[in-house]
C-alpha cells in the first residue's frame, strides 16, 4: 500500500500530481502553517463530552464523508469540531503526532505502510496484509512510538481491486482474478506507477493468479485515466478501489480477489493518544459507528456525493440519522 493510494478524487488526483513535487518540497513548512494556526486541539481538555476536536484528513469525497461522519457524531456528543482536510497524508499525519490534529479517518493498510515506510525507508518490507486483525496489530506497534493509535476499524473497506469491462467479463465468463489467469491471454493493465514492483499488483497477478501481464500503463490507482483506458479498451484490466461508486455507470465490474492478494483497507479512525486519554468517550462514539458501516453503505454515500452532487456533510448526517446514531 502506498502513501498516496487515495490522495484525491479520481478526477482531481491526476491534476494534483502536477503540483506534487513543489507540494512535497513545501510540505514541511506549509503543513505547519496549514494545520497549527488554530489547531489547539483537545489534548488538554480533561472533561469528557466537551472541548474541541480538530479532525484532519485527505480532501476527496470518501474522506470528506468519513470526516463529516466523525464530525457529526462528535458534535452530537458535545464537542466543538474543526475540520481541516488537506491534499495528502504527510501534511496531517505529523501534525497528529504533535497534537495539532486530534483525529483523522484513514485506511488500515495504507496507514500501516505509510508509518512502516516513514520508519524503515521506502524499501521496507510490507507488514500490512489481507488479515485486518493482524494489520491492526502492526499498525498499533508502528503508531504507538509516535503518540498516535487506531480505534476500531470499520467493516467498510476501500481496498485495491481490479476491474474489467462487463462485456469482457461476460464474453470470457470471468468473475474472479483466478478466472482471468485461466483464460491465459496477454492482459494489459492500467495501474499505479509502482505496480511492476509490487506484490499486490503486477508481481502478485502474475505469480499468484498466473495472469500474463503484457504491459502496465502507469495511469494511477482508480484515476479517471485508468477507468477511461479500461472503458475504451486500451487496457483489459484496471486497478481501482472497492468503494468506487462510478464503476457501474462506466460499465466496469470488479473481479473477485479470490486468493486474497490485496491488503485489508478498512476505514479506521486514527487518534492522538494524549487526546484519547483525555476524551475516552470519543472511542465509544466512533467505534459504535464503525461497527455498522459496510462497504456498500460507503459506496452508496460516495455515489450520492460524486453522482448527485450532494454535500458530504448532508450525506453523512442522513446516514447517521438513518442508523439512529445521532438525533
Amino acid at each position, binding site marked *: 500500500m*502506498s502513501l498516496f493510494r487515495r490522495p484525491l478524487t479520481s478526477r482531481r488526483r*491526476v491534476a494534483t500530481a*502536477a503540483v*506534487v*513535487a513543489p507540494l*512535497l*518540497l513545501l510540505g514541511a513548512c506549509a503543513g505547519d502553517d496549514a494545520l497549527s494556526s488554530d489547531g489547539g486541539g483537545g489534548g488538554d481538555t480533561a472533561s469528557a463530552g466537551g472541548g474541541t476536536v480538530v479532525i484532519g484528513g485527505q480532501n476527496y469525497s470518501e474522506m470528506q464523508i468519513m470526516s463529516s461522519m466523525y464530525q457529526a457524531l462528535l458534535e452530537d456528543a458535545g464537542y466543538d469540531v474543526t475540520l481541516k482536510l488537506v491534499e495528502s497524508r504527510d501534511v496531517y499525519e505529523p501534525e497528529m503526532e504533535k497534537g495539532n490534529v486530534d483525529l483523522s479517518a484513514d485506511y488500515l493498510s495504507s496507514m500501516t505502510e505509510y508509518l512502516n515506510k516513514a520508519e524503515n525507508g521506502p524499501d521496507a518490507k510490507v507488514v500490512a496484509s489481507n488479515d485486518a486483525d493482524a494489520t491492526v496489530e502492526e499498525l498499533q506497534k508502528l503508531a504507538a512510538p509516535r503518540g498516535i493509535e487506531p480505534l476500531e476499524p470499520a467493516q467498510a473497506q476501500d481496498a485495491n481491486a481490479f476491474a474489467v469491462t462487463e462485456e469482457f467479463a461476460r464474453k470470457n465468463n470471468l468473475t474472479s482474478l483466478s478466472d482471468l489467469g485461466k483464460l491465459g491471454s496477454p492482459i494489459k493493465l492500467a495501474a499505479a*506507477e509502482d505496480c511492476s514492483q509490487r506484490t499486490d499488483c503486477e508481481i502478485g497477478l502474475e505469480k499468484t493468479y498466473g495472469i500474463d501481464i503484457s504491459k502496465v500503463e*502507469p495511469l494511477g490507482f482508480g484515476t479517471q485515466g485508468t477507468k477511461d483506458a479500461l472503458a475504451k479498451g486500451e487496457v483489459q484490466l484496471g486497478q481501482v478501489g472497492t468503494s468506487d461508486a462510478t464503476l457501474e455507470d462506466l460499465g466496469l465490474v470488479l473481479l473477485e480477489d479470490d486468493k486474497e492478494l490485496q491488503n485489508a483497507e478498512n476505514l479506521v479512525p486514527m487518534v492522538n493518544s494524549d487526546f484519547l486519554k483525555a476524551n475516552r468517550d470519543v472511542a465509544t462514539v466512533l467505534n459504535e459507528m464503525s461497527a455498522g458501516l459496510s462497504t456498500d453503505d460507503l459506496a452508496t454515500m460516495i455515489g450520492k456525493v460524486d453522482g448527485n452532487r450532494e454535500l458530504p456533510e448532508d450525506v453523512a448526517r442522513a446516514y447517521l440519522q438513518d442508523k439512529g446514531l445521532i438525533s
Partner: protein
Amino acid sequence: MLTDVLAWFADPANWQGEGGILNRLLEHVLLSVTATAAAALVGLPLAIWLGHLGRGGTLAINISNIGRAIPTFAVLLVLALGPIGTSYLGPYGRAGLATLVALVLFALPPIITNAYVGMREVDRDLVESARGMGMTGVQVLREVEIPLALPLIMSGLRLAVVQVWATATIAALVAGPGLGRIVTLGFVRQDLAQVVGGALVIAVIALALEVLMVTLQRRLDPVARAKRQAAGTSVLGSVELRS
C-alpha cells in the same frame, strides 16, 4: 534528506534501465527538442514574415497567447481524451502526439511574440536606408531586419526552450516518457529522495539550458559582436550600428 538524495544519485541502479535517469533524460531531450523545433518551425517564419509586413502581428500574438492562458496540462488532457487520443507515437510514448501538440502550443507564444516585436523594433530609418540603397524586400529582411531582430528572436527561443524543458514533465501524467516519470514514481513509492532527485535533474538542466541560450544569444547578437570587434581591433572608421 540531503544525504538520501545523494545516495539516490550514487546508486547506479537509478541510472540504468528503462526507468533510469539516463533513459528518461534521453526521452525528455527528444520530447523537448521535437516540441521546441516544431514550434520554432511554425512560429518563426510566421512572426518574421508578419513583422516584415508590419501587419497582422497583434492578431497572431493574441491567438498564440491563448496557449499561455490555458494551462498546458488541461490542453494535454483535453487532447488526449478527445480527437488525438492516447495511442503510442514511437519514442514519444503513450499519448505522444497529444503531448507534443500541447507542448508546441505552449512554446508558440514566446517565440511568436518576441520575434514579431523584434522585427517591429528594428529602426525604421535603417530599413528605409536599406531600401534606398536598392535592396529588395528579401534582402532587407535577410541583411537588415533579421540580424537586428536576432536578440529578441533568440530571447523568445530561450524562453520556449526552458519552458518546454520544464513542462515536458507533464508527459508522465498521461503515462508518457521523460524525467517526469522519475518524480511520479518516487511520489507513488513514497520515496522522497527520488522525488527530489528527479526534480533536481530537471531543474539543474533547465538552468543550464538558460545559461547556454543566453550565451548563444550574446554570440549571435550582431550589434554586440560589432562592438566587440570594434573594441578588439580598434579599427578606425568601423561602422557603429545602432538599434
